């Protein structure tokens, strides 16, 4: 027995820095898998497909590292071994470079190394005019404001996320893996002495084959055909989630307070969304907590409904669904019953502590709406007295920024205000990108803190968001008819800080662990991100639901059995309240937890676009975004040999085969010549 591959395995594995122990030993000698990557996947809407696609058996190319623009010439023209797989520096990941790469056949794929620190000039792969065409402004309503004629909200937007690429694009999240690739490139692919590099060359293979094509219409048609005949698995998934409406009590004319909780970046499941989503929903949660603590909140004339919409990034999935449900009487509340609407968008980057109030100038032309909007604005301005927040009106010349409120306005002229930290263009220079991280909202922690200390540390960002939450909570109190002094209503910066830490830095912290149900504790532990995704509910939805329940609910003295089956308890009022049995915090010096029952009015409401309910795949009225399905997504690097070596191997093999066949034939034919008959008796002849 020969120890061919086995010995080499014993000696080699420990030497490589990214040795991963999967696959047999020969595979480990050939490939280095890249584990910390995020792919760009295909998304479809009614008319287009966006995103990236690889061939069914992956795309392979010789690696070329592009760190400055001149390096592109090698890929586009000079290099002798196309197609190339480009390792692109994050600072060069812009529209100009990408369109150059899109137009050539010499590129078989792209791996982007995330730029650290974030590009100083800003980076946004979203559109310049987000959710254009699905908001309230159109040629029939405020045409001077439609299609960002008046204000371009996201001037840094390159629209890269909405382009269609026919090669795979991956994001390399781990700097160590990027270094391994660059080292392989340095060892094998760099041209020496002016001539091209020699084989073997370092190459990369990316697998991200997407099953869906063309548009949602085509895809749903194919899926329904296939599932009718049970031929193939489905090719497409609808983007859907649960939105969370919370009502303080019964449903009488509540003011609605709403915002979005999802985000997106170019890459799948990478959506930190610090400024675009997290800052606003954290402030929202803090305002809910502050209001809940007010003593007479149960005696208010009107009820306040706090809503968190999912899927707003993709043409307002959540809010359009809620409006649809309200119109069709499937929601406990009707549109007529909404007194006013306050929305918060992107509030973390206030300039000189100014918070802007945006209103819709077109609906304000109506006298009665104007009066109510005026009252709303005055209440808000009065609530900011004494706080370090200056509220200013954006004015009649400005339309509403992209916001969930626009969907409500489409249905009814409700008086409403959208609060943001920007007057015209976004302050957020990394809108809907992978760089919209805690650093973008200036969250800084001192060095050397343990995770528990970091959880409790109150950052300046948290204090500033807490002030905004205080103002909003006081305004909501007044709007709901509260007459007392509002100085007692204060948002707690500690809570804000803990939420920011949990939603942006580390989900698996002691506070989150104590407020969730025991059977879903698996949702804590990944790097936080807020992409809407297809399997619902996502981690973000669950967490927001439980945080809200914790902040606005009450602890009730029920046992686990009673809590899990509230209909058996006579006074539980199951129709009004939700009961949750949560883990509780750890007992001191022990690994056991003290669970308890929380009663709250938090509910989930399905946020599937009405287009899918109505089966109008080509709808221009509602969002039709879908995500393609795929089988496997992975990336790996290896060496490729020259074609000459391969052909030589084949020729040698064929030669040996033919030679051995001929030789054996002749030896067999002449066996009597070669082998003499032995003389001893009893032996047998051949």
């Amino acid at each position, binding site marked *: *027995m*020969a*120890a*061919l*591959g*086995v*010995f*080499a395995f*014993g*000696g*080699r594995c*420990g*030497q490589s820095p990214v040795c991963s122990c999967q696959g047999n030993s*020969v*595979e480990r*000698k*050939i*490939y280095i898998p890249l584990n910390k990557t995020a792919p760009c996947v295909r998304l479809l809407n009614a008319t287009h497909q966006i995103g990236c696609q690889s061939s069914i058996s992956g795309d*392979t190319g010789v690696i070329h590292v592009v760190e400055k623009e001149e390096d592109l010439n090698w890929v586009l023209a000079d290099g002798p071994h196309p197609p190339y797989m480009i390792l692109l520096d994050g600072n060069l990941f812009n529209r100009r470079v990408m369109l150059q790469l899109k137009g050539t056949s010499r590129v078989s794929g792209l791996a982007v190394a995330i730029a650290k620190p974030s590009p100083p000039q800003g980076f946004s792969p979203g559109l310049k005019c987000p959710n254009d065409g699905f908001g309230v402004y159109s040629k029939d309503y405020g045409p001077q404001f439609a299609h960002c004629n008046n204000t371009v909200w996201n001037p840094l937007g390159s629209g890269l996320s909405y382009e269609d690429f026919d090669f795979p694009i991956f994001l390399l999240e781990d700097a160590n893996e990027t270094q391994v690739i660059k080292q*392989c490139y340095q060892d094998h692919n760099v041209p020496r002495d002016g001539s091209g590099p020699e084989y*073997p060359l*370092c*190459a990369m*293979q990316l697998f991200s084959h997407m099953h869906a094509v063309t548009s949602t219409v085509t895809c749903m048609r194919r899926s329904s055909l296939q599932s009718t005949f049970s031929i193939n698995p489905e090719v497409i998934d609808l983007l859907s989630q649960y939105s969370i409406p919370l009502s303080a009590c019964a449903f009488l004319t509540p003011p609605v307070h709403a915002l979005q909780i999802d985000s997106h970046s170019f890459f799948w499941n990478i959506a930190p969304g610090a400024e675009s989503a997290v800052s606003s929903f954290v402030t929202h949660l803090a305002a809910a907590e502050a209001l809940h603590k007010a003593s007479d909140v149960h005696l208010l004339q009107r009820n306040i409904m706090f809503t968190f919409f999912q899927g707003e990034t993709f043409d307002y999935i959540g809010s359009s669904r809620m409006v649809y449900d309200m119109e069709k009487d499937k929601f406990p509340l009707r549109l007529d019953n909404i007194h006013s609407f306050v929305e918060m968008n992107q509030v973390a980057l206030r300039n000189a502590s100014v918070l802007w109030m945006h209103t819709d100038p077109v609906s304000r032309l109506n006298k009665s709406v104007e009066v109510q909007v005026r009252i709303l604005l005055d209440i808000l301005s009065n609530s900011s007295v004494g706080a370090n927040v200056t509220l200013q009106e954006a004015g009649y010349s400005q339309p509403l920024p992209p916001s969930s409120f626009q969907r409500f306005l489409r249905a009814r002229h409700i008086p409403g205000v959208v609060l943001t930290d920007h007057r015209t263009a976004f302050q957020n220079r990394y809108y809907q990108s992978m760089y919209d991280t805690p650093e973008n909202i200036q969250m800084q922690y001192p060095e050397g803190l343990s995770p528990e200390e970091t959880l409790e540390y109150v950052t300046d960002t948290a204090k500033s968001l807490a002030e905004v939450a205080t103002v909003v909570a006081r305004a909501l109190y007044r709007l709901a008819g509260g007459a007392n002094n509002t100085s007692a209503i204060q948002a707690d910066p500690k809570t804000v800080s803990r939420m920011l830490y949990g939603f942006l830095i580390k989900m698996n912290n002691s506070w989150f662990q104590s407020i969730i149900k025991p059977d879903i504790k698996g949702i804590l532990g990944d790097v936080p991100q807020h992409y809407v995704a297809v399997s619902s509910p996502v981690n973000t939805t669950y967490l927001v639901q439980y945080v809200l329940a914790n902040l606005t609910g009450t602890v009730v003295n029920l046992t686990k059995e009673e809590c899990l089956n509230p209909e058996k308890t006579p006074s539980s009022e199951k129709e009004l309240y939700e009961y949750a049995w949560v883990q509780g915090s750890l007992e001191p010096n022990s690994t056991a937890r003290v669970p308890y029952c929380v009663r709250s009015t938090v509910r989930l409401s399905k946020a599937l676009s009405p287009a899918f309910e109505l089966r109008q795949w080509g709808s221009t009225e509602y969002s039709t975004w879908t995500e393609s399905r795929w089988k496997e997504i992975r990336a*790996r*690097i*290896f*060496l*490729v*040999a020259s074609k000459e*070596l*391969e*052909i030589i*191997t*084949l*020729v*040698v*093999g*064929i030669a*040996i*085969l033919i030679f*051995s*066949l001929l*030789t*054996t*034939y*002749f*030896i*067999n*034919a*002449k066996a*009597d*010549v*070669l*082998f*003499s*008959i*032995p003389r001893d008796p009893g032996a*047998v002849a*051949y």
Partner: protein
Amino acid sequence: MTLAVFFGCTFIAFGPALGLFVFTIARDPLRIIILIAGAFFWLVSLLLSSLIWFIAVKASDPRDEPLQKGLLIFGVMFSVLLQEAFRFLYYKLLRKAIEGLVALSEDGCSPISIQQMAYVAGVGFGLMSGAFSMINLLADTLGPGTVGIHGDSQLYFLTSAFMTMVLIFLHTFWGILFFHGCEHRRWWEITAVVVMHLAVSGSTFCNPLYVGSLVPSYLLMATAAAWAYLLSGGSAQNLWRFLLCLRSGPSPQPGS
């Protein structure tokens, strides 16, 4: 490394064995049975030896590299000894089979001699050994990459294929030598086979210094080939006559 390398390596490793099978074994069903049974015996010996090695590895510390290397060497040597033991067992079985075949035949002669059985058993052992050495490598040759990113030699697949070819030949010749030694009670022939087997397996630990493993193996194969040829009734004269006949074309001879 794609299809070219896959077929190239397959032909290099199994081409000669295919020739042997097609021209000398395939026509006779009895020989096919002996071939497959021989392959099975080799398989069982590998199973047992790998069980021992596996237990030893699991019982030891995986991070201790010299210990793991030592265990591997021990595993290989133990496997060689176990294979030869199973070759002996197979010899015993075939001996019994010949008695049965003689009893069943019409003219009191066995349709197949022990020397032929030795040869076929050797090919059986060799084929199964080659398959286990080579199949998982061949599967990896179909991918786009070649060995080398961690610094190993690019010629890994080629040298593995050549090693497999020489091993198949060696097993064939060892079969002939071993059975001859058992038949005529020449223990030194059996010992020589075992020593040669240990030497070839041990030489593979020189890899990736392929010169250290391939060259001695081919030399040993030449030696074993010559020895087996002589034991099977060949001689230098016969060889000379064969080559001369070939050069001057096939002369009319009584059929074999």
